[in-house]
């Protein structure tokens, strides 16, 4: 057995040997980048064509339902008259509900997700939320992304802190991949971690545009080499960054250094990711939606053996204030079919048992419908956990539809218990270091 240190030196050498950057960087890697390297070198060391086996590390896929999903019309309390009373226009007919129990069942369009339940791969955690719920998209998303208390502003994301705490030592292969244009705040950390892209073919430097591509490529790389942290002439004000919370924190050196690190990470990961996605094809059809494309891409990266352990995807459009029935139905259908394809794909690859997917939304919606046939911002909501390692079933109790807090469901499970469970029981990471305190673990794994 190699010690963690030896192993990282070894993989680092591998990286420098195999990297597209060649030797150019070997003598200029500044110390502060070491941690980033420990993350990225493992990516470079893995063979792109390698088909992973069930013995490889577990993977977490976080799925954000952006805009505040109506949890009540997702996991429907059809056994409660109060549901039909509160929602005369938008309550879903009892007969159409995909039953889980005599009280609750899934939205009629969630057939694929219901199948997952029947096969024993779906957990539904009821009444998830946090104390003093905030009904602003911005703030509540931030609370979920940073796993902070409602009355505290935290700049780093919960996954960013996981990368910081666990992306070194014996198992450094924990960098994250977000599918989408912007890095989610959940990834924000003191050093750049993870990559974000929506299309791998655009995720590379096109030096061929120059009349002398080789020289353009070489000098571009040289111009993007990180300088020493002390080298920059001015470092930024490093006050608290309220208002800019979704960007990385500012105590992170100058903007130039931030850009340099981003460029370096981009160069290294683009090569690896392209090699995989060009080689790997899905055998399964996905819906032609953004979520379908994103999950397809994640499946190919997993199949191609990218050692990333955290993926982040999102589906938007859940802010259904008016005329919500048709739009929510479309969203549920997309969610269900895309998830279903993803699961089939992973099963065909033999990777299904390695993957845990957690869905979340910044809040649920009010129990009562509004006058516009929609629902306003609410609080607690159910959350799905899916995967080969999930113990199926309903967790917790459905919150009362009549004993409300400001017109909203009361939460019974803190969302950080879900995070803690995923960290401890799935990724094997110490959750207290990441979340700042111990949260009770849930039995869904």
């Amino acid at each position, binding site marked *: 057995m190699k010690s963690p240190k030896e192993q990282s030196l070894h993989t680092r050498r591998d990286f420098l040997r195999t990297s597209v950057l060649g030797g150019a960087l070997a003598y200029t890697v500044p110390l502060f980048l070491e941690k980033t390297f420990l993350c990225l070198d493992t990516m470079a060391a893995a063979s792109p064509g390698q088909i992973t086996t069930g013995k490889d590390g577990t993977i977490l896929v976080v799925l954000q339902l*952006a805009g505040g999903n109506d949890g009540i019309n997702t996991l429907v309390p059809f056994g409660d008259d109060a549901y039909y009373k509160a929602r005369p226009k938008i309550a879903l007919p009892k007969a159409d509900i995909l039953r889980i129990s005599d009280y609750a069942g899934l939205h009629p369009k969630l057939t694929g997700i219901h199948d997952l339940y029947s096969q024993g791969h779906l957990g539904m955690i009821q009444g998830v939320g946090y104390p003093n719920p*905030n*009904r*602003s998209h*911005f*703030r509540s998303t931030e609370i979920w992304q940073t796993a902070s208390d409602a009355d505290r502003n935290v700049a780093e994301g919960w996954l960013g802190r996981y990368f910081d705490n666990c992306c070194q030592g014996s198992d450094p292969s924990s960098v994250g991949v977000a599918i989408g*244009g*912007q*890095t989610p705040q959940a990834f924000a950390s003191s050093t750049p971690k993870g990559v*974000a*892209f*929506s299309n791998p073919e*655009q995720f*590379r*430097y*096109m*030096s*061929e*545009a*120059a*009349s*002398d591509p080789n*020289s*353009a490529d070489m*000098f*571009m790389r*040289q*111009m*993007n080499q990180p*300088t020493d942290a002390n*080298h920059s*002439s*001015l470092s*930024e*004000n490093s*006050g*608290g*960054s309220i*208002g*800019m919370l*979704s*960007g990385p924190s*500012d105590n992170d050196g100058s*903007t*130039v250094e*931030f*850009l340099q690190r*981003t*460029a370096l*990470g*981009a160069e290294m*990961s*683009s090569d690896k990711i392209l090699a995989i996605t060009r080689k790997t094809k899905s055998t399964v059809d996905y819906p032609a939606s953004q979520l379908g494309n994103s999950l397809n891409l994640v499946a190919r990266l997993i199949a191609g053996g990218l050692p990333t352990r955290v993926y982040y995807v999102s589906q938007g459009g859940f802010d259904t204030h008016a005329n919500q029935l048709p739009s929510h139905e479309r969203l549920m259908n997309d969610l269900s079919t895309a998830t279903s394809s993803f699961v089939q794909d992973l099963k065909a690859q033999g990777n299904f048992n390695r993957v845990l997917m957690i869905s979340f939304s910044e809040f649920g919606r009010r129990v009562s419908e*509004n*006058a*516009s046939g*929609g629902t*306003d*911002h609410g609080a607690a909501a159910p959350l799905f956990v899916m995967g080969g390692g999930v113990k199926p079933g309903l967790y917790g109790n459905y919150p009362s539809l009549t004993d409300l807090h*400001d017109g909203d469901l009361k939460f019974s499970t803190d969302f950080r218990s879900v995070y803690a469970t995923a960290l401890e029981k799935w990724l094997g990471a110490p959750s207290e270091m990441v979340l700042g305190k111990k949260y009770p673990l849930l039995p869904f794994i």
Partner: protein
Amino acid sequence: MFSPLPEKLWDRNLAAHLLDRAGFGGTPADIDSLVLMGPGKAVDSFIHADDDGDLFPKPQMLMPAERLVYKQREKAATTEEQRREIRKELGNEEYTSMLNLRLWWLNRMRYTAAPLQEKATLFWHGHFATSNAKVNDSYMMWQQNETLRRYALGKFPDMLKAMSRDPAMIRWLDLGQSRKDHPNENFAREVMELFSLGEGHYTEKDIQESAKAFTGYRIDYQTGYFRFQEKDFDPGTKTFFDKSGPFTGDDIIDAIVAQPQCARFIGKKLWVFFVSENPPEETITGIAELLLSNGYDIGATLATIFSSADFYSPHAVHHQIKSPVQWIMQTTKMLEIPLPDARVLENSLAALGQVVFAPPNVKGWDGGRAWISASSLLYRYNMAAYLLSGKARILGGGNTKTAIIPLETIAPASVRSGSDQLLDHLSFRLFNYPLQTKDRATYLTYLEKHPVPYSNDTVRDLMQIMMSTPDYQLT
């Protein structure tokens, strides 16, 4: 609080800083004309620029009357098939309409002689963050854009009132369905959280009460304008910020802007957008005092900011990450080329994360470092290569023609026989800022490998390298 910049410090770098931040950059000639004016007149030329709106006639859009015809046809249709067909037709027209509108605004930013007006309009667009993704009516989006432009350098309270009556906003935040017996809280919440005070400066009760005051606000679909529907308005007593009365929406806005926190919130946002991130406490206080004393006069406030020594501080100059729109404007102006092909523009702004008329959510664009991900940074580099040679395969770029870069103007023969000369010349045009010693050495190494006088290929390749750097992302 804000001491003016000493006139003797005024030089090309500082004039360029003003041009970049109060507008969208320009050529060395543009910068030199600001240098000649001196700081006072230069700032004035932005604040009091003549409105040249007549040069940008209203874009070709689907008008309210035409939209009504579609609606009537849909009503009259007898089968679901026909209705679908009509809706599809309408959708296509609306799509084209939106493309026209977006191109219209981007070209206005690119060519206007009143760039601060457009820059401030872009600021307010990010502030009010209304997206056509929900509004789905380009004519309404255009109206809102004109309203933002009208008040961009005017008084903020007037703008806030105008926005509460703005059809696109009414649809965006569901105000159109809010009525006496069922007030919709969305607008009431966002008007405080996002538009004026920020999270934590009001209670849930304030939201519920003020929502009653904004009832009865409607869109007139005949004209596309605002109308007030008296019968849906709640004339009853509301308790807001510890005062009670039969408040109207305008009364609520007056009460909001009277809060010192509103001036702090708006002041900080202005500073972050135009000057630098993380302003110190005393700066926020200073700008808030200014806003409260001049009745939230945005033009006057910006004039003070642009004249202040703080605006030209080394912490501000060349320390802001260009937004995607800023990147495209500064780049095309600097290269003296028109905006790229509409398809390229459309796709690129999406890839870079800033589609105007479609901000990502109610809080607008985060800005700063959030503009930069590994992929958006690579895209910027490739976009530069595409604009320079047409050869990078960026989104939507297939079979498009790129403008010919006037390399003889950008690097005239007189600067092509010495590496230092060429580098000084190019770096001022590209960066508006002196090169760091280390960067300079690398560029010189590149030039040493090429024969003098430097060919167009050498100049273009060097520019591609210079634009594929962290340095080029800053303004």
